[in-house]
């Protein structure tokens, strides 16, 4: 119960921090995608419905800043939340390998889905936008997410 509360607090802080870094300070790609990290953390605590709802809400916030591709982020994040929520029924355990894969694949899937949903007119080259940026962003998110879990004590405590 305590771990779940910590997860919610950490996720909320991550969401605020994400928008502060990306929108407030305009850092852009230099800052990690903390929304995905927050979503993936929360997804392990709530059911697939809740995870999809959180993903939809966070994606909608990102879409509010998108001029041409409204809905792309909400769709991608809702699906990632759904997938993240599903993993808790498939994988039990907090090994480092699992966490790294979880964050890297989560971020990669989010970028892949956004690229697919975005449409041919708006999206960039697949290699650059998905393979390179998606994987690098995934590693970045994994480092930040695991560090956060270690700092907040979430890594030692099983979510289930």
């Amino acid at each position, binding site marked *: 119960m305590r771990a779940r509360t910590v997860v919610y607090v950490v996720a909320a802080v991550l969401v605020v921090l994400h*928008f*502060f870094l990306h*929108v*407030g*300070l*305009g850092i852009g790609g230099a800052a990690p995608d903390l929304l995905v990290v927050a979503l993936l953390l929360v997804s392990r605590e709530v*059911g*697939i*419905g*809740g*995870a*999809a*709802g959180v*993903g*939809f809400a966070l*994606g*909608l*916030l990102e*879409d*509010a*800043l*998108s001029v041409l591709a*409204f*809905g*792309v982020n*909400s*769709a991608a*994040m*809702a*699906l990632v*939340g*759904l997938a993240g*929520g599903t993993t808790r029924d498939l994988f039990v355990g907090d090994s480092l390998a699992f966490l790294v894969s979880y964050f890297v694949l989560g971020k990669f899937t989010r970028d892949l889905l956004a690229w697919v*949903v975005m449409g041919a007119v708006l999206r960039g080259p697949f290699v650059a936008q998905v393979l390179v940026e998606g994987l690098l962003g995934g590693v970045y998110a994994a480092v930040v997410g695991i560090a956060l879990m270690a700092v907040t004590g979430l890594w030692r405590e099983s979510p289930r």
Partner: protein
Amino acid sequence: MPPPYAPEPEGTGGRRQKAMAVVFVLLSLVAMYLPDSGQQQIAGLLRATALRPFIAVQDRLVSSRLRAQEVSTVQAQMDSLAGLMATQASLADENRTLRNLLDLSSRLGPSFRGASLLRSGTPGSESMFILDVGQADGVQEGAPVVDRHGLVGVVREVRQQSAMGIDWTHPDFRASAMLADGTAFGLVETQRGAFREEDVLVLNGTAFYEAVPEGMPVLTSGMGGVFPRGIPIGSVAGVADAEGRWRKSYWLRPMVHPASVTHVLVGVGERIQDLSHVWPPDSAMTRDQAILWEYHMADSLRALTDSVAAMRAHLDELMGIPADSSAVAKADPTPPPGVMP
């Protein structure tokens, strides 16, 4: 009874979760295909509520960056202006010097020739200078070196294309001198101070009871044959010393500060005995006095121009001619470079 390896039956919670997930995924798809106006309304609502603090932070940050850029631009403009002003000041000063020399040269005639004065800057050569004219130009040893304001020094050594001289701060400098009204005679020499800035001219050997008013110009007397008569050396600045009851010496305020001299006129050819007509008594003034005098002259001219323009405007008004506001010249209150108003 369910089969032993069949999946666990889902409870109502699991079904509700799946239904919620489907609903949210569908909602996200609906959001994608909303009409533009609907999308903009939702986006605007979110920007005005949840995202408002972050957008405000960005606004402030951008404003700060813009202000910082403006400060940098203003600073750069100020630096450019300061540089321009500094350049203009030196140019104006050089222009004034050259104009004065041209004016002086026209009065002196062909017996003096323009030259640039250089200083080597090496230790021990502080009172010496090099001229870029020499024997080939008719310069001879002992030729006087003058500028618009008076005596600078004398040529000591002449080469084919250059010459060396000493200015009045040199310990060997001597000049027979007299008051501008011709009432007292003496010998002007240098008295070294603890610092070079303290070097002063002293008028020696004047009669004790001779009245020497302060501010009276002191000119070369022409005696001794070194310097022609009538070149300003300085003006009396006070009594320096009195010996017994038979001799007095006076401090002189020099007409020329050698450190600021860059262009001079050098005597060439036949020695002229009298130059009194070149520096009339009312024109004997130091460089600073001359600059101030020029400024006052320019100021008077501007005031006169304003008066004429105002009178002309008044006349046009009386005659019914539309007034031309541009005809009224604006007086420039800025003094020339190097002069305090």
